[in-house]
């Protein structure tokens, strides 16, 4: 709660107070937890609260997950036995009669409907009875391995399926009949179909060596899935973004833009009515005007050219500093802050550069006369054709 900015909290409280018809102070007190919440608006709490109120799915009591797949020999044995049991049980008794999901849910600490769905799905997939699955889930029996009869989905990590080689003596014969997806280190990318009928190349040798049986337990048309993991509600609903203060683009921004648009158009029309664009006599290659000046945005450069060697001023400065240097700014300035007080050096450099350019440009525009020599505009006038028709110091 405390990480919501003051003004946002205030605005939210005012809106809420207006909607409920109660004083703002009361709402504020409620929101900051100093007073009990007004009865009717439990669902109207700020987001952060809602997140915390979400019932937590207990991962501890949930079904065994892929990463829990047994790695030790003993565990593999258990898994294999469970497997055999499940295979033998068959899907016939999947419904499992009446099961008290309410009581089980209370015990597991999760909603009854969710528990029921997950138990039924697992029972259907593994072929065990629902009661048995439920009992396992509630920890009354040793947790079973993931139902390996399922043709593993393509993404299922092959590494997590138990490697049966070391336990081959300990398990009964029908375990060997497990589908190859579980019985052999299938190539990681193999699709279920591919593991059932292994290609005759490379890593498939191990599979080909033992008898292959089609999974019998899974009835035709049943889509079997393994539960890989249960994600806690918190993990996916955590609100990471800071609450930001936003307004609708329409009308707030659009109105502003439209006003600016009209203002610019009006300014340009007025400017164009008052000031005539220069048009001198026709181009004449034989009559070089004195001085010859570039457009104003290049006049700073022209000014530089009068001080330095053209190789430096004409090329090196504009291309290195003007282009490459400017493009490189974000990669050179590693300071992450955008507060002016934290970036005094950067601001000084930029301002210095801009002031320098402006000074050179103004010198070039106003203070350069015939022969590009220094003149004072208030003495000799302006030698810049874009300006001279409408700026007059005399």
């Amino acid at each position, binding site marked *: 709660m405390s990480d919501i900015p003051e003004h946002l909290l205030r605005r939210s409280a005012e809106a809420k107070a207006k909607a409920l018809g109660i004083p703002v102070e009361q709402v504020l007190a409620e929101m900051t937890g100093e007073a009990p919440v007004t009865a009717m608006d439990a669902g109207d709490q700020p987001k952060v609260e809602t997140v915390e109120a979400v019932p937590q799915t207990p991962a501890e009591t949930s079904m065994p997950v892929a990463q829990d797949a047994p790695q030790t020999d003993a565990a593999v044995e258990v898994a294999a036995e469970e497997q055999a049991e499940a295979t033998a049980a068959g899907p016939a008794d999947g419904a499992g009669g009446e099961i008290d999901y309410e009581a089980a849910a209370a015990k597991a600490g999760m909603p009854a409907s969710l528990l029921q769905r997950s138990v039924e799905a697992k029972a259907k997939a593994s072929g065990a009875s629902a009661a048995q699955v439920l009992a396992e889930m509630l920890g009354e029996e040793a947790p079973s391995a993931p139902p390996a009869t399922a043709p593993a989905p393509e993404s299922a990590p092959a590494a997590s399926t138990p490697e049966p080689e070391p336990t081959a003596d300990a398990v009964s014969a029908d375990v060997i009949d497990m589908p190859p997806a579980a019985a052999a280190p299938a190539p990681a990318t193999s699709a279920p179909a591919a593991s059932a009928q292994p290609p005759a190349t490379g890593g498939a040798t191990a599979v080909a060596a033992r008898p292959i049986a089609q999974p019998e337990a899974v009835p035709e048309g049943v889509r079997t899935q393994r539960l890989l993991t249960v994600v806690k509600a918190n993990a996916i609903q955590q609100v990471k973004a800071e609450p930001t203060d936003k307004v609708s683009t329409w009308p707030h921004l659009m109105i502003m833009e439209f006003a600016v648009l009209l203002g610019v158009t009006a300014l*340009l029309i007025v*400017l164009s009515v008052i000031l005539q664009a220069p048009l*001198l006599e*026709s*181009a*004449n290659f034989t009559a070089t005007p004195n001085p*010859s000046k570039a*457009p104003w945005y290049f006049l700073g450069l022209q000014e530089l050219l009068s001080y330095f060697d053209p190789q430096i001023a004409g*090329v090196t400065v504009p291309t290195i500093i003007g282009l490459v240097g400017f493009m490189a700014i974000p990669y050179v300035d590693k300071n992450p802050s*955008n507060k002016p007080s934290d970036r005094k050096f950067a601001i000084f450099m930029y301002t210095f550069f801009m002031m320098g350019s402006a000074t050179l440009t103004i010198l070039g525009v106003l203070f350069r006369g015939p022969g590009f020599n220094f003149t004072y505009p208030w003495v000799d006038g302006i030698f810049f054709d874009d300006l001279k028709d409408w700026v007059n110091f005399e």
Partner: protein
Amino acid sequence: MANGIVDKVKEQATSIWGKVHGSQVAESILRPGSPFKKGYSDTPRNRSYVIMNNVLYHLHPVKVKRHGVRLSYTLCLGGISFFLFILLTITGIFLMFYYAPTAEAAYVDVEALSTSVAFGSLVRNMHRWGAHLMVLSVFLHMSRVFYHGAYKPPREFNWVVGVILLLLTLLLSFTGYLLPWDQLALWAVTVGTNMAGFVPVFGDQVKFALLGSVEVTGDTILRWYVLHVLAFPFIIVIFMAVHFWRVRKDGGISGPL
């Protein structure tokens, strides 16, 4: 008597307008949530639809940060630059109708524009001053972005695109400078391209490619005309599209400070 007629006319007008406004044609033109649609009401949902159901959705998100809306934050300089570009396109198309890019015709055409074309002088003035204003506003926009530190991650690349846009703006302005083909144009461009000739190693080649000759000639007009009305606008529009798109993808307007 007179009042009665006025009322009747008003009534008729309202009824006709209602039919036009609610007609299938109007309904088909205006998408749901348009503020011009019949029965529009100012609700939060419709405020979102105004942007979402509009081509403007390519430019603006539905909501923007509150501080970004304040005129004092951006001074709308990027928007002004873009809008000036649009104005320059419109006035430029108008000017193209009356201009032939040859050494013989160019100056005569520009002169005739001021004397014998309706609004010709005004449109030419708007085009010229608008171009200067655009160079200025692009510079100021860059400065505003710098002082807000708005080029910092994740916006580094958009700053680079911005510098390219500044360069293209200068090139557009400079190529347009030659087209009136008066003494000012000729010699300003001569000075400018002489600077390009100082490029080390292949300076002369750069200058030759720019001018289509060793110095400014009639051929240069055609070359710069094509660059000015077609090539550079085409390139700058592409970069502007990337620039605007990146503004949104990089998290909208920067700040607050």
